[in-house]
């Protein structure tokens, strides 16, 4: 099927970009937030409007400029990108709502700046999702890095400065020091950067070079937080919670993982990876990350840091899924993007809501909080279920596919890793829920005045929690998309 | 070209140049630099470059030495090397 030429992808990217000048110029907070909402809704609608065509198996393409020979500034909507864009744009709406509640609740400074860069970050995220080649991907990836810096360092204090430095060091250092040369090398080898289902790297390249290339990409996209380059993520938790939520659930980290997915599947291609046994290597790196991150998470006391380490582990599931090189594994990885996003964002929202309502960050201070904030903690429970992969949560589906994939690829050690890590997940989430609800009132250190957070905070987390649930029962759009994506990659041999 | 004169004057030029940068007095440097430009003028004339010689004569005698002296006048004669 030939691709459709359409301006919609560009529009989807530009909506939030275009809203930035308006945000800067408007003085009234209400107008500003109305515009933010409007843009978020519009973006979601645009993305949604492309869904039918994508589901039909067609691609939407928008070429803007031929910047280098064989490399264009081009946007393309395919199933995988659509999946990611759908997740990101839908979550922008809820996050916007949540941001309003959170920012106003805490009377944060620099809200205009905050919303501007938020919009920019979203724009970049959609751009990454829709990019048709490595160059465009890199462009939006960098844009995202720089747009999130002011968000991470929003508090503008010494701690923020420190983590901002760490953030930049890892992210930008990885992208310029590793991804850029890798890209140039890839271009040098193949003369193009255009994604294709079979990968564009020539199979004739020297295996060592290709291996080095792969790992340059893997660690260069440091946003994916594969283990040696993960340290920025916990540090970046100094950001306001909505930022952390978006950053760690959707935008930044998912972008990193998404990039790695793209590289594995459409730069190298599954055949090439399989023939060089590189997939296994990646899978073991991911497996190590999963286990190590979960173990570290067990020791954390600060809720957000715990969530951060949990994220590190969960992200590696996705990488692992792709690295299995089996159709089921790929599907599992792709769906996990969506499932983890909704689950994790719920958890972050909860953490933020708790902070807004009580000002507490640490787990040890939250005993009995479930009685004071039942809605929040219920949502937390659902999110946790989803992350662990227990049936009513959407996460179960993705884990299921991952397990299948591992079986398909005959990788029993990896199967064990997945299962063990699920147990570990449960081990660090369940005590929280337990201590929130089933603890005696005398152990509670919370004052009596504490109640639910403002409605703008609570409503979004309820919504995302519900979606997490719904996805278990009706995962159809995401499943279809992932299936489509896998089909194009494997060439219809998926099922 | 008259090579005997040429050679002698060339040696003079070199001596003048060395002298101009070795003297521990800026006014002396300026003056010797004037002599240097006389020599240069002669040299050009010997090599048949009359126009260049003319220019060097007018510039060296009329202008550049005066500029140097004016500068030294407004600054100092003292120098350590």
């Amino acid at each position: 099927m030939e691709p459709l030429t359409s301006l919609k992808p560009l529009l989807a990217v530009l909506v939030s970009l275009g809203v930035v000048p308006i945000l800067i110029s408007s003085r009234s907070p209400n107008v500003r937030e109305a515009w933010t909402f409007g843009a978020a809704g519009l973006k979601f609608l645009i993305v949604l409007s492309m869904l039918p065509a994508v589901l039909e198996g067609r691609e939407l393409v928008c070429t803007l400029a031929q910047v280098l020979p064989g490399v264009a500034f081009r946007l393309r909507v395919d199933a995988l990108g659509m999946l990611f864009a759908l997740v990101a744009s839908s979550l922008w709406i809820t996050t916007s709502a949540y941001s309003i509640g959170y920012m106003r609740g805490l009377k944060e400074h620099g809200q205009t700046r905050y919303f501007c860069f938020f919009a920019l970050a979203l724009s970049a995220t959609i751009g990454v999702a829709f990019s048709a080649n490595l160059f465009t991907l890199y462009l939006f990836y960098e844009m995202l890095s720089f747009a999130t810096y002011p968000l991470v360092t929003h508090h503008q204090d010494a701690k923020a400065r420190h983590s901002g430095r760490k953030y930049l060091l890892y992210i930008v250092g990885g992208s310029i020091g590793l991804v850029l040369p890798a890209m140039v090398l890839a271009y040098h080898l193949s003369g193009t950067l255009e994604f294709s289902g079979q990968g564009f790297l020539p199979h004739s390249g020297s295996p060592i070079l290709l291996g080095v290339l792969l790992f340059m990409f893997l660690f260069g996209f440091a946003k994916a937080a594969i283990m040696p380059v993960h340290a920025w993520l916990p540090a970046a938790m100094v950001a306001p919670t909505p930022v952390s939520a978006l950053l760690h659930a959707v935008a930044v980290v998912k972008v990193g993982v998404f990039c790695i997915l793209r590289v594995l599947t459409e730069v190298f291609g599954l055949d090439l990876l399989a023939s060089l046994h590189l997939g296994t290597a990646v899978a073991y790196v991911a497996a190590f990350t999963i286990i190590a991150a979960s173990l570290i998470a067990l020791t954390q006391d600060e809720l957000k840091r715990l969530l951060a380490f949990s994220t590190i582990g969960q992200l590696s599931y996705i990488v692992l899924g792709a690295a299995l090189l089996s159709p089921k594994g790929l599907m599992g990885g792709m769906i996990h993007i969506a499932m983890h996003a909704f689950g994790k964002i719920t958890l972050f929202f909860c953490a933020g809501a708790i902070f807004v309502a009580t000002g507490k960050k640490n787990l040890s201070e939250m005993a009995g909080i479930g009685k004071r904030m039942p809605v929040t903690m219920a949502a937390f429970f659902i999110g946790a279920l989803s992350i662990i992969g227990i049936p009513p949560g959407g996460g179960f589906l993705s884990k299921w596919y991952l397990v299948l994939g591992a079986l398909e690829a005959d990788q029993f050690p990896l199967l064990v890793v997945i299962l063990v890590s699920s147990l570990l997940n449960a081990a660090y989430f369940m005590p929280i829920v337990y201590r929130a609800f089933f603890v005696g009132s005398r152990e509670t250190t919370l004052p009596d005045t504490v109640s639910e957070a403002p409605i703008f905070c609570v409503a979004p987390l309820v919504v995302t929690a519900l979606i997490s649930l719904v996805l278990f029962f009706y995962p159809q759009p995401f499943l279809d998309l992932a299936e489509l994506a896998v089909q194009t990659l494997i060439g219809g041999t998926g099922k | 070209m008259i090579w005997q004169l040429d050679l002698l004057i060339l040696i003079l030029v070199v001596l003048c140049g060395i002298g101009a940068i070795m003297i521990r007095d800026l006014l002396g440097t300026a003056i010797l630099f004037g002599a240097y430009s006389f020599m240069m003028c002669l040299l050009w004339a010997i090599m048949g470059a009359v126009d260049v010689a003319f220019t060097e004569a007018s510039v060296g005698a009329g202008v550049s030495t005066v500029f140097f002296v004016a500068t030294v006048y407004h600054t100092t004669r003292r120098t350590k090397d």
Partner: protein
Amino acid sequence: MKNLGLLIVVLVGAVLIYATTDFPPFGDPESPASLHVSPRYLENSLEETAVPNVVTSVLVDYRGLDTMFETTVVFAAGVACFLLLRVPRRRTPAPRQYRHRLTGLTFRIKDGGEISLPLQEFEPMESIWTPHDFIIEKVCCYLIPFIQLFGLFVIAHGHHSPGGGFQGGVILGASIILLSLSHDLRTALKRMGEKTSALFSTFGVLIYAGTGALCLLLGYNFLDYQALDPLLPGGPVMARYHGILLVEVGVGMAVMGTMIWIFRNLASRGRHEEGL
């Protein structure tokens, strides 16, 4: 620094000497430089421009563009000295001055100001003090008109004998410099004000560039003096001849004005008071 300097000097010298061995011998009439481009100038200059001084014809006509920019360089130097040194005139009354005996520095004390330094190291100075030496003044008075005439002569006869606009201009400028040296800068300024000299230098270059532009307007190439044929008598060759003269006058004016300008700013440190 000295050792480094010696090292660099020896290195560069060695490189240059290394190349010398492949030069054609000094004064060789068969060297490539003498055979390739220059013979045409020598052989055709008289026919094409009616100028026997080949240097002039090459300078102003064949390679006229270089000369235009050369004049511009001089002009730029004049403007630069003006820009850097010129101090706008003050309205305050003439300040008292002291000179440091050891360094020769002059201190200027504004009216009402007090000097708090050890006074025995300083000696008071008049703010304008020029030794009145009428021998020099008188002799220079007699010399200057002749120098000026000679300068004009050099400009006008650049076609037939060595010389030309630049040399003549320098001589003209030197005559004014001589005036300000022998008398006083103010005397020279009365005779030729700062504005005049600046405008001289500007309009000199303007004559040159304007001639070029005029040729352009007349439908020929820039600086193709042949274009002046309709304006000047004597046919296209003589038009070149006269065009060259016109341009030389421009160069002379520019150089004269600029030399005076630079000298004044240097000699009085931009104050245009006493001068050297």
